[in-house]
């Protein structure tokens, strides 16, 4: 009997453009059943023709009918500027709509992030290499 289905949200420390939302059910499958990645590596959909295999972030990840990991973008996720990813609520709403998650009377779920005891200062620099001291 399948136990719990979990909704998990994770954000990288000091980078509020890099976060993931996942639906997991460990009784059913080790891997997340459905996932949203805002940032990170570009996925390869191996079963597609080469010209359309690349799916950059932000993207959704799911399993196709053949059981392979498949990534895709909806129209709202294409050509997104990196700084737009700071609006986590917007992309969380897209995620919830895509996997039919609602709360109460079709109200959108609100995502609260961070430690409420700390000031929510934006420490992130869009250029993550800006303060790296490359010794040439």
């Amino acid at each position: 009997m399948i136990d719990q289905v979990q909704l998990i949200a994770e954000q990288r420390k000091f980078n509020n453009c890099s976060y993931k939302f996942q639906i997991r059910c460990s009784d059913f499958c080790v891997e997340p059943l459905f996932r949203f990645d805002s940032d990170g590596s570009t996925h390869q959909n191996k079963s597609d023709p080469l010209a359309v295999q690349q799916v950059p972030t932000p993207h959704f990840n799911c399993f196709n009918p053949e059981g392979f990991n498949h990534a895709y973008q909806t129209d709202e996720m294409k050509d997104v500027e990196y700084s737009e990813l700071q609006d986590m609520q917007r992309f969380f709403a897209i995620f919830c709509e895509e996997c039919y998650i609602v709360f109460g009377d079709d109200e959108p779920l609100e995502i609260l992030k961070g430690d409420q005891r700390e000031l929510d200062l934006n420490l992130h620099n869009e250029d993550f290499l800006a303060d790296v001291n490359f010794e040439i």
Partner: protein
Amino acid sequence: MNTLELFGDIKETFCSLWKYKLRGETMEVITPFTTPNSKFVSVFITRRNDSYIVTDGGWLLAGEYYNAESVNQKDINPLLKYFEALYELKTIDHYGTKMFFSSTEEVKMIPNKVHDLSQFISQAVSSYALKINDERELKESESFKFDADQFIRGIVGTEKIAKRHSVSTEYDAVRFNVIIEYGSEISLVKYITGSTPHYYKTSLTNAQADFNIINKSPFNTVIKNRIAIINDSAPGYDSKKGSLYTGLLEEYLKRPAVLWSQREKLYELL
């Protein structure tokens, strides 16, 4: 489509796989290089005064392409060092994340650096994947060997089991999992298992070769029973695909192979 059109199509397709994303003053270049676990490699280009830096951005060891725990294992370091030296890369530690990079002051050399970093990342991830694959296979075969050894010991006792795994020094290359001594005769046992269909098939064909060689040797006349035990609960076991090979093996065994799920048949054979 004629040959030239075909070539044009291939070239255009590959070219379309080069994409970019702007991250402030850094540009992420998404390359056509891939990893065994279905990711396209990205490299990052930024400037420091007159130099152009091309780097993996720390993504390799941060686990962006492959499980972070695996890529940071100490014993994988020699492979990483090899590739690092091959592409003449430098490293820098940034808040606990190690980044690999190469630099140039010449714009025309940037594509070279992009090529080198991309190859490095792709090859490093491939070597992790291969190592994990090999480790899984070793674990699987060791586990089955332990169970099968124990089962056979339970039937014949330890005294009859020969300490050696080959019939003589001349035939030392032909190895058996168990050799059982019955006075002037011996029985030879081989285990067939595999964590993937590839390893399973290798195990099967090795067994064929070994029994074939021993059957053509002078030892043929002193063999009481030739036994193959097939691990039918192995991840790589495929009864349909393996049946052609099993048939040939059974010719050399002069009897059917024994499935692990029917191992009680070994009581009659041993």
